[in-house]
């Protein structure tokens, strides 16, 4: 049955490749936001689902990755005292991923000593560190009031911005369309790498450490190294998601409070994606990202069209508020009725289709 699955994935990829020809820019941007979430969620599902380490630090690594890219690719700006290295964007992106991976390793001595909810709380400290760093290191981040514009991504001279005229099949390809393909490419690489690793000895060592450290050690796995490795990989994914975040917003702007683009709420949103999708499932992380990051975007687009939830201010039913309720409810439903998440439901349906007799038992 593997070829049916391969065909379905191929069909999905073709649809995703064709979408910019049909969708308006605002819908593309909603889709791009889901892809940002998907890259981060894959990283977290590897760490929390496969290696069994609860982390609420994802938002910090997002900020670190976004800042690293902006600094590495950006130029010096004398009057604002901004630091920049003028690196080619591809190099800056790889550099940002490497830097966040190193930050993840730097946290490994803490991560190796704590378990479960204790690790979760300790990792949350990083989010507050990020909040402080974002405000204090204005030379890097541009500060909370103005922020800093990231260099648009470009590959071999092709810019993923509104630069130049490009038309394909009569559709003008501007920034939204171009960034769609950039993000799709990055997501595809992130997805395939994760899938390959999960099925290999690396994923096996993570699961072994998650389920029984003594058994993992006796089988030749260095528990400390496996944990540090999982943290590094997960942070690198979050770092890439951070680069995508600043490219999506077109600005790097550190938060003023602990809730924002790189705040606690984002760390929790990533955890929600991973739980809804099914802990440890890479395809599940994709679906979780579509639900959690997609819902507020789609609701916002519909609400302007239909005139729903247009209230503003404190008590208003904004799309963000409504989606928080929806994914909160989704988490409760998953935990109560299907702890394996959407991935487990998917597996059950696939099992029933390929073997109807067993499904009826």
């Amino acid at each position: 049955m593997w070829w049916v699955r391969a065909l379905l994935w191929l069909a999905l990829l073709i649809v995703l490749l064709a979408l910019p020809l049909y969708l308006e820019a605002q819908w593309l941007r909603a889709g791009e936001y889901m892809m940002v979430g998907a890259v981060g969620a894959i990283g977290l599902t590897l760490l929390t689902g496969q290696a069994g380490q609860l982390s609420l630090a994802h938002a910090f690594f997002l900020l670190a990755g976004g800042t690293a890219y902006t600094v590495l690719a950006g130029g010096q700006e004398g009057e604002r005292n901004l630091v920049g290295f003028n690196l080619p964007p591809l190099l800056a992106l790889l550099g940002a991923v490497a830097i966040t991976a190193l930050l993840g390793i730097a946290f490994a001595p803490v991560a190796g000593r704590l378990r479960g909810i204790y690790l979760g709380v300790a990792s949350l400290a990083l989010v507050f560190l990020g909040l402080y760093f974002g405000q204090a290191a204005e030379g890097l981040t541009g500060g909370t009031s103005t922020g800093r514009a990231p260099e648009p991504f470009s590959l071999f001279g092709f810019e993923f911005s509104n630069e130049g005229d490009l038309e394909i099949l009569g559709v003008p390809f501007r920034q939204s369309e171009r960034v769609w393909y950039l993000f799709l490419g990055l997501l595809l690489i992130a997805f395939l790498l994760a899938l390959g690793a999960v099925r290999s000895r690396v994923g096996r060592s993570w699961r072994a450490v998650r389920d029984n450290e003594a058994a993992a050690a006796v089988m030749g796995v260095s528990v400390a190294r496996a944990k540090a490795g999982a943290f590094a990989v997960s942070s690198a994914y979050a770092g890439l998601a951070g680069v995508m975040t600043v490219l999506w917003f077109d600005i790097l702007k550190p938060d003023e409070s602990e809730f924002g683009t790189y705040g606690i709420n984002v760390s929790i949103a990533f955890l929600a994606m991973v739980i809804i999708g099914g802990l440890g499932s890479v395809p599940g992380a994709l679906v979780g990202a579509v639900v959690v990051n997609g819902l507020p975007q789609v609701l916002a687009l519909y609400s302007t069209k239909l005139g729903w939830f247009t209230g503003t201010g404190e008590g208003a039913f904004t799309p963000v508020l409504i989606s928080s309720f929806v994914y909160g409810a989704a988490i409760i439903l998953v935990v109560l009725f299907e702890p394996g998440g959407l991935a487990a439901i998917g597996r059950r349906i696939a099992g029933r289709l390929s073997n109807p007799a067993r499904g009826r038992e």
Partner: protein
Amino acid sequence: MTPAELRVENVTLRFGGLRALDSVSFDVQPGSLHALIGPNGAGKSSCFNVICGLYRASEGRVFFGDVELTRQRPNRLARLGIGRSFQNAALSSHSTVLDNVMLGRFALTRGGFLECGLRLPWITRTERRHAERAAEICEFLGIGDVLHTPVGALPYGAVKRVDIARALAVEPALLLLDEPAAGMNAAETAELAHTIHEIRAELGISILLVEHDMGLVMGIADRVSVLDFGRLIADGTPAEVQADPEVVRAYLGTDHKENA
């Protein structure tokens, strides 16, 4: 790999004021089936954990051939040719049988996140080769038809076999079995005795067995060491040990009459 001798030399293990092991010494001869028995809390599992490096001995040393095991970290064990099964099986219940057994090949393979993620040709090739060997080992242990079943869905007897298969996947010269028959019924135990016998006959490796089930031990072991309250009270052939009055008093007394 030629089997080496395992020597436990004057090992003492203290937890605070408690002596879990008190100057315990015994040898496991190459190619022999050696049983370590004793009543509950006698220190059998502690002794295993010292050998594996999971516990640090307070005094004394353990050698495997020329290598001092008490100086090694536990993750070196597999590379030295020692495989171990666990009392509680300690498997990943959501993963398949093959995936669990393949963990035993960890020390025999290489490749980090990027190499494995990119599925480089040599990674895929070695992975396939090792999966074939793992399947062979499962076949040998009678679990070849459930390779792709999650361990959590298997009956208890099969789960214990998966654990042994994983230990064998290390390609050990010495196999440590921690109460493989715990919780099994008489029929399953008899089958297991047959399997352990076959492992030694086919692979010619040394086996150190911690066990409660006297019938199993006396039937298949070449040599038996008896622990009681952390002390070694007897060491000899099954017949010698069964005749030892101190052993009868400490352990076999009532139990032996029940089994007879």
